[in-house]
């Protein structure tokens, strides 16, 4: 049953790692703006030139 001491120790250590990860995230400002990243991730990486022309074509056709 002495195993319990070790298990509890490890579980607390693991939990501490997550707590420290939260501290780091908070300190680096990741919790300051929770809105913009949700929009930002929807942008295409590099605007595709061909696609742009296509959308212009669309306007012309319409």
């Amino acid at each position, binding site marked *: 049953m002495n195993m319990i*001491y070790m298990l509890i120790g490890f579980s607390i250590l693991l939990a501490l790692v997550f*707590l420290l990860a939260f501290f780091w995230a*908070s300190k680096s400002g990741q919790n300051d703006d929770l809105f*913009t990243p949700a*929009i930002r991730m929807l*942008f*295409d990486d590099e605007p595709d*030139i061909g696609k742009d022309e296509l959308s212009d074509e669309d306007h012309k056709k*319409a």
Partner: protein
Amino acid sequence: MKENLSLSIDTQCYHCGDDLPAAPYTSGDKHFCCLGCKGVYQILSHHNLSSYYAYNEIPGASQKKAAQHFDYLDDTKIAAELADYADENTTVITLFIPAIHCSSCIWLLENLYKINPAIVQSRTDFLKKQVSLTFKNQQISLRKTVELLTAVGYEPLISLQDVVKKQQSDHSERNLLTKIAVAGFCFGNVMLLSFPEYFGLSTFEKTFQHFFGWVNLVFAVPVLLYSARDYFISAWTNLKNGILNLDFPLALGIAVMFIRSAYEIITHTGAGFIDTLCSLVFFLLIGKWMQQRTYHYLSFERDYRSYFPVAVTLIKDGKEKPLPLNELKIGDRILIRSNEIIPADAILLKGEAELDFSFVTGESLAIKKVLGEVIYAGGRQIKGAIELEVVKPVSQSYLTKLWNNETFAARKDNIKTFSNTASKYFSIVLLVIAISAGLFWISTDINKAVASFTAVLIIACPCALALSSPFTLAAVLSIFDKNKFYLKNTAIIEELARIDTIVFDKTGTITNPEAKGFEFTGNLSQEEKQLVSDLARNSGHPLSRELVKWLNLSSLHPVDQYMEKVGRGLSGSVNGHEIKLGSAAFLGLTQQEKGSVVHILVDGKYCGYFLSAQLWRTGFRQLAVKLGHQADLHLLSGDQDHDQHILAPFFPKTNQLHFKQSPQNKLDYILKLQNSGAKVMMLGDGLNDAGALKQSNIGVAVTDNINNFSPGCDAILDGVSFEKIPQFIKQAKDAVRVIHMSFVISVLYNIAGLFFAVQGLLSPLMAAILMPLSTITIILFTSISARFYAAKNNLL
């Protein structure tokens, strides 16, 4: 769908969506309403950033307003003050850009490096409408960066009172979250280690008991010293000032809990109350976080400095040079260009002054000034450049000295909240019970005396009571927010419930600045109306636009020989008829003008005039009737009294209608009402109400665009929710009732716990159950009942 799209593109500006004038600006196959919009489009398409128009249809903002001059950004002192960080290579600056409104804005602002590679990085914070820019200052100056932003249609608003800076240095929410994280972490672990104790331990498992106890005690230390620190500090400072607030019994309970638990664990006499301690602090901090969660992207603290520019152009020895506003002295000669604001009271020396005082008075009619006349600060020059001599420093001007009124210094921080009043009595009763329980047992059993004394302090720790206000008020705050009524903090809700006097400003507050109606006097056939509409369609002047909107006719005839004299009138030949629109002077009439009038001349024949009339906000009539039942209504207007007969029926007592009020008059009037014992709510909009808004118990700024600047106030109300004011007041009163009810519930829990505590029979298990149970009851009760009342008041 596609046809609709093409239709809208043909008649609307591709960039901003405004109606196209008769001769639109074109670039490729795109049409634009003005040179500004076209310019932005050309920059973007040239740098291959046309996706801006793909993410959203019509993402741009109108570029008709002339941009400011940014020469002052070349001044190293000003530049250094604005920057977040600067070394010899890179500069980091955060700018507030009111035009940010859609995903295209974010996309474009974060792709600025494609236009100028010297901009290393740009990050947008959408809710705060801020952009953080990192650029190489050797290759691009701050001024060039700001001008680039302006060129793509995102002019930053740079002001003296740097709201941006203040928000950045404010890490209180971050710190609170960290405290919650620590408390939550310890709470979870302690609960896990306490469970075996709750279910009882066999003799074999007893060996773990002390180990678990010690680990628990270790977890309690950061909760006590870090997470709960603010309660001890607050209780101590208040106690020093002779105030018993709710933090006192909380701090006492936490301290006693820790000491008794430590004693029990160290002496192996019991399991202690560590689990209760951790859950208590965790829930308390969550309540605090709920209460603090305000809409920080709205600023309620703006004063005149937000309206004024950072610098003015000083003329010295015939040379122009930017000067920071706070260095402006009496006798300085300054240059005000078109569209700039006059920052201090000054005498007109040169040029033609025509000033728009709508910032100050809410009245948009321009005022002309002649040479040698004193011009008050706050006006915006709409004609060409003028030269002035400063007669009063910025802080002593007619308008700005309202803010330096010392009456504001002390007030407002001490709104009497229910929990503050209740906690005073609560603390005293609690101490009396604890001491008498201890004294009762002291003669028979010293251990029991200590046990009962500490147990009373632990069990009666007003956790549920401390949570009832934050949770109720936070729920109401979010309900108000959904209805576009934004409060500065939760204490305003309790103050709102006490309001018995309501003071309105007129222009822009009870009238709708957007919608205008016209009254036509004279003779005009349908055919002639069509001609007038066709001509007016070509003009960008607000009155012409309103007139076109009001006439509601589609365009039919093209216009020849179109001519517009800005601010005077239009003329042109439509379908063979000679049409002239505009002011009396423009048409060569000898009439006196009253208000905004558009006269009409068809083929040299006078046909009459359109008089622009203001419209009341929707629902003002019903609102006045409803509010009249529960509160005293007053009106303070800076205008002439020509509307008195229309407004009189809304205000039962005629002596409560006041016209031609200066900002100082308004402030004094509020003060007079307060001295007679009234709780005053003031609704205003312009800078001229700012003093009164600040003085009143609740100052509400009414605005049609919440991102516009509104004067310093306690709450911002969107114009569309104007008619809901009676519901808001009702909801605030209901919220106070919910707080009272939850207070009763938490006291009942306390009495149940006290019943065991005074007998010295309180077990840790009982405390561990009772405390979270009462807390959760309160959270559920307050949140649900606040929403129930909101539904009843039609606010959900």
